[in-house]
């Protein structure tokens, strides 16, 4: 069967324009089941727009996105979630009027077909997920009492509670200090170890090298390079895109 060999996520010439600007321009790549892939790129490279296209919050202008071989381009975000794609936001969007446990339970109540269960079951799954991301002790806290790193954890917990097969993480490490990044890396590894495919956007190089098996570099909406993180980060074009031509030359010499 061809479905068995097709990659879990497949992007073909994905293009998204805002007026005259192509924020994402003909991006193609594949993510295999169980993989953990990082997307990096300078500010404005189109990373978040790309995630928005995959999760259905923005419509593609051209191209196709396939999940397990069938197209998900143009379907609404809640249906994408039900098909098994979880998503976090760079600027966290917790349900502010609820407790930590309730936030996670909402994910468990409405997520993918695997997550779907009754209210009591959802709260049980919420507790499991909070344990996984290290928020179990704060389950009864209101969201407003959480620190920034904890809010990022909650964002991940809510997405994981939807029981996704593929998890999109939008800069979960941004704004964290070194110790917090290490903790967050452990959390991402723990989530990945449960069998979830992870596609993450990061600014912090250490994260990409630390957890990703493969890195994709975006620049001005194009894929600049992809491959093993160590190799990709030594690519001259990548260094240029990040640091400018002058520094790239200096590094080379």
């Amino acid at each position, binding site marked *: 069967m061809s479905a068995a060999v097709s990659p879990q996520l497949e992007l073909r010439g994905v293009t998204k324009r805002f007026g005259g600007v192509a924020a994402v321009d003909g991006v193609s790549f594949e993510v295999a089941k169980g993989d953990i892939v990082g997307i990096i790129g300078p500010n404005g490279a189109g990373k978040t727009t790309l995630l928005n296209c995959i*999760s259905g*919050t923005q419509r593609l202008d051209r191209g196709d996105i396939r999940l397990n071989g069938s197209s998900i381009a143009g379907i*609404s*975000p*809640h*249906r994408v*979630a*039900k098909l098994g794609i*979880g*998503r976090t*936001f760079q600027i966290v*969007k*917790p*349900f*502010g*009027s*609820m407790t930590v446990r*309730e936030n996670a*339970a*909402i*994910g468990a*109540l*409405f*997520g*993918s077909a695997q*997550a779907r269960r*009754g*209210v009591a079951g959802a709260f049980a799954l919420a507790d499991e997920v909070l344990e996984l991301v290290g928020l179990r002790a704060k389950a009864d806290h209101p969201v407003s009492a959480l620190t920034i790193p904890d809010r990022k954890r909650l964002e991940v917990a*809510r*997405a994981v*509670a*939807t029981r996704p097969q593929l998890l999109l993480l939008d800069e979960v490490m941004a704004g964290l200090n070194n110790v917090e990044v290490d903790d967050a890396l452990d959390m991402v590894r723990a989530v990945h170890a449960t069998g979830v495919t992870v596609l993450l956007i990061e600014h912090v190089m250490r994260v990409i090298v630390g957890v990703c098996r493969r890195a994709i570099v975006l620049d001005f909406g194009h894929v600049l390079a992809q491959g093993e993180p160590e190799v990709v980060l030594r690519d001259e074009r990548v260094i240029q895109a990040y640091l400018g031509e002058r520094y790239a030359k200096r590094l080379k010499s």
Partner: protein
Amino acid sequence: MDAFVQLVILGLLAGGVYVAVGVGFGLVWGVLNIVNLAHGALVVVGGYITWQLFTGFGLDPFLTLPLDAAALFILGYALQRGVINRIIRAPLLFTFLLTFGVNLVIVNILLLIFGSDFRSVTPAYSGQGLELGSVVIPYVRLASLGAAILLAAGLAFLLNRTRIGLAIHAISADRDAAQLVGIDLRHAYAVTYGLGAACAGIAGGLIAMIQAITPTAGEPYTLQAFVVVILGGLGRVSATVVGGLAFGLVEAFGQSIPGSGSVFANAIAFGLMVLVLVTRPQGLMGRLH
């Protein structure tokens, strides 16, 4: 002393109706951010369904309440799904215009069907009451208060303990995040408006037993709902219960002032609302964020 007790009782009894009128309005406002100017018209639709079932089929008016709720839920769901969803992200003024338009349409359809005559629902027990010393409490009003409290409790249970209730909480907290955990926004919005309409329908059924209704009678109910929700505080059913009962009490005492009478009922109501907005803008029970 007797007069005081009587006023408290009358105030609470009137407050029960305000609770019923207010809860659905508060739900729609709090979750969808729509000040639903068609709310009063929906109340009147509920009243007419009760009247029709009572006069046409001899059904006890209290037994018609679930049917009011069911019919108005369907109507509300369809209205939101088909019409109001289109402007859900539009500025508040658009929701005013649209719901006012819906209000006009409903009122005129009622006029076409039922004419402009006043109708009232008078079951056999409507004249009877409970005598406590010199105070007489009409059974219908007592049962209405009970029904209103039950309605509020049922709504609170639904919102806090059920799947769809949690979805409603989630969409009111963050639409984008709710969508991305798998909540169908258009459906959840429609259910919310449907529930608000169902509450209005029950309120209408209760009102039809207490006073005569006519298709154009809805506007005061929209205003009352507005005042009650502001008084209690937006966002929680329990706050609307407090707001409704408080409004009933204030109105009862206000009308008892010599020379006041029912003429000043609206002035008192809106005066109170202004007072609350100035001194405690989050409402009696509301929380500031």
